[in-house]
């Protein structure tokens, strides 16, 4: 059988391009700067909605800008100095790290387990895979409201089932040491299927020949997974971890509805604190300084993630 020569496919397009290039000056310009031209509109939008607000935020971090006070001025590093001495900041940073690492690790580990289960050839696997998409399609506010009802210590299902098996029924959302675990549990409901779908795509791409060869050489299932499957899907795993990691920094609606960051500030991460400080309590300058801190945290941690996981791809 004769394979198609890629040159044959490319040739007409090249000819067309060449003929256009020889046309008007505009045509020649487009031909020369094709990639730049088609990406220009999206670049402009990106600059307008991301880069400009980002630069403005950095600028605001050095002011005492307030939504209520009409007069505001440049205050240098005062907001950062306040942040250094703010007794709430250490707890809020701890909550942020707890949330990011907790959700990333739990969602990825359980997502991998689920993906492995979904990868088995059983009848109805397609339907089950579709069902796992449902949590992802549900609005985060609805998810949070549902979990708030389920965590209710008087009438929630969770404590009801715990009572059936004679286990202690804790006050999930009213206990500082249980509020953040409750947030993690509610997040897992949507986070695990999301990771599972991503990782399943990776699993489906792993060579069956390799796995069969390893099995025929005497490797057990765990060894096949550890030495064949996992290394083969490292690029997908890296992307899945990275997406979850960044998503965890952005997690907002769930916490706002579930615990409003309480009791006290025991489940308040940095982004919720920024929202409250800036938009609800009007101190935009201080909130902008915390925003800068959040951006630095994300940049540094994503960089570290690249160094640890990405380098070995």
């Amino acid at each position, binding site marked *: 059988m004769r394979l198609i020569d890629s040159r044959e496919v490319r040739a007409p397009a090249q000819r067309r391009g060449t003929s256009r290039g020889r046309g008007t000056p505009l045509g020649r310009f487009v031909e020369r700067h094709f990639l730049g031209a088609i990406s220009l509109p999206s670049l402009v939008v990106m600059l307008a909605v991301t880069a400009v607000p980002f630069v403005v935020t950095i600028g605001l971090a050095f002011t*005492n800008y*307030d*939504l*209520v*006070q*009409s007069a505001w001025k440049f205050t240098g590093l*005062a907001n950062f100095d*306040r942040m250094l*001495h*703010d*007794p*709430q900041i250490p707890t809020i940073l701890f909550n942020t790290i707890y949330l990011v690492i907790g959700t990333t690790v739990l969602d990825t580990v359980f997502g991998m387990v689920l993906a492995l289960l979904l990868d088995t050839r059983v009848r109805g696997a397609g339907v089950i895979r579709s069902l796992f998409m449902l949590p992802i399609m549900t609005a985060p506010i609805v998810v949070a409201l549902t979990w708030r009802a389920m965590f*209710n*210590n*008087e009438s929630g299902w969770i404590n009801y089932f715990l009572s059936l098996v004679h286990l202690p029924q804790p*006050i999930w*959302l*009213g*206990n*500082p040491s249980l509020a953040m675990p409750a947030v993690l549990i509610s997040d897992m409901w949507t986070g695990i299927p999301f990771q599972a779908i991503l990782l399943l795509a990776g699993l489906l791409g792993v060579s069956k020949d390799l796995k069969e060869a390893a099995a025929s050489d005497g490797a057990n299932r765990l060894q096949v997974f550890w030495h064949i499957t996992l290394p083969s899907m490292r690029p997908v795993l890296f992307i899945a971890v990275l997406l979850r990691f960044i998503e965890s920094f952005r997690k907002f609606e769930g916490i706002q509805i579930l*615990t*409003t*960051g*309480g*009791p*006290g*500030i*025991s489940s308040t991460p940095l982004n919720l604190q920024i929202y*409250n*400080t800036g*938009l*609800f*309590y*009007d*101190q935009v300058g*201080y909130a902008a300084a915390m925003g800068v801190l959040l951006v630095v945290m994300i940049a540094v941690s994503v960089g570290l993630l690249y160094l640890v996981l990405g380098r070995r791809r």
Partner: protein
Amino acid sequence: MDRRIKRRHLATAALAAGTVLLAACSSSSSSSSSSSAGASSSKPYAGQTITLETYSAVPEFDYYKSLMPKFTAQTGINVNFVQLPVDTMDQKIPLQLKAKDSGLDVFFTGSEKITDFVGSGGAQSLDSFINDPKQTPASYNFKDFAPDVEAACQQGGVTYCIASHTGGALLYYNTKMFKAAGITSPPQTPDQLLSDAAKLTTPSHAGFCVRADKSQTLYDAFQLWNWFIPWNNPVTGTYFDKSWNFLIGAEPQASQFATFYRTLLTKYAPKGISTYLVTNCLSDFQQGRVAMWQDDSGTIPSVLDPNQSTVATSTAFWAMPCPPANPDHCALVQPFGVWMNKASQHKGASWQLIQFITSEQTQLAAVEAKALLTPSRMSVLHNPSAIAALPPTFAAQLTYILAHPDVTLLPFIPEGVAIIPPISTGLSDLITTGTPVTQIMATMTSGVNTIMKQAGYPKPFPSS
């Protein structure tokens, strides 16, 4: 071939552009003709649609919603009546105002946020409407609003909201449970309240309830600290003295209040009180799961409605007498107002709606329907049919509350809202941690002082 296709595309594009242009012209001409027709009629804003936002599950607002078809019939103005839970609406409206969202026209909320709303340019001044005889007939009688209540809707002599009602701090109590516990009269002092709560706490019901969720905790805690913290002045109430010292954190009253609050809520309140919203306390009280509940008088209709409440016939109301520490201003009076969004594009129509809702006829009808208990109009307050409609034990308490008012739910300064976080966090910590009360109150004070210092205080104390 290519040219033919190009021409066809050009022709199609031209046709589409022409259609769009024609549609735009016809719609603009029809809208202008309809508006000119409207202007010439007695319904100058007919055909406009405005959006009103308020809380859900509040009988007064449910009642106003039921009147909207009548309002539309009278004025030709359609109303998009949006109701959301208290906590959701309390987040939504400030954001809409700060974002200059023209999708919001009229809203209800407490007057304590007036400095925030005015400062951020979100609240429309209503004086130009009130003083315009073309917009406001003399029969509306703006001077009929109780002066003390309406004053909370004004800043710098400018009116920003029309007081629709005033909430009063009340103790709801279950008379059957009191009798069963051998308690013959409601508590006279905070210490008595604690001992009554202890007697009323049984395996089947809790002794006392307040909303203690972090998002709403300040509202009820305010009612309780008024029994310990001396009221200082009408601008900063119990928050600051005229030298800007934070009174709630000043010892010894800070620790007295904090100890009382911690004991009451950790020993005699329902499990999980730190996540309780107003709806949780209401539901518990209605279902007989709690014996006493301190909150605003606005939920009385829900408690007395036998369709919703199992304790409708065994509920009484009580205003705790002012203690010596705060003899004259111990009762929360929270004027609730109807506001207009400054970014609204239907201000004339919005004013029509505000007038309709706050008219004497509407208020009286709302009182008679038992949907409103604390009207803001003097004529309604003194109307015999309105007095007859009040619950028996409430009328006397309302008189006491209005004679000992503290309307300063938040200090009337630009930083009024900004100082909420350290206070609400401290209140939450009191009932969810074992940290010593002195330490929590000191942290609260330090947090408030930092915010005030950042805002440039101490400043000259405002005259009004």
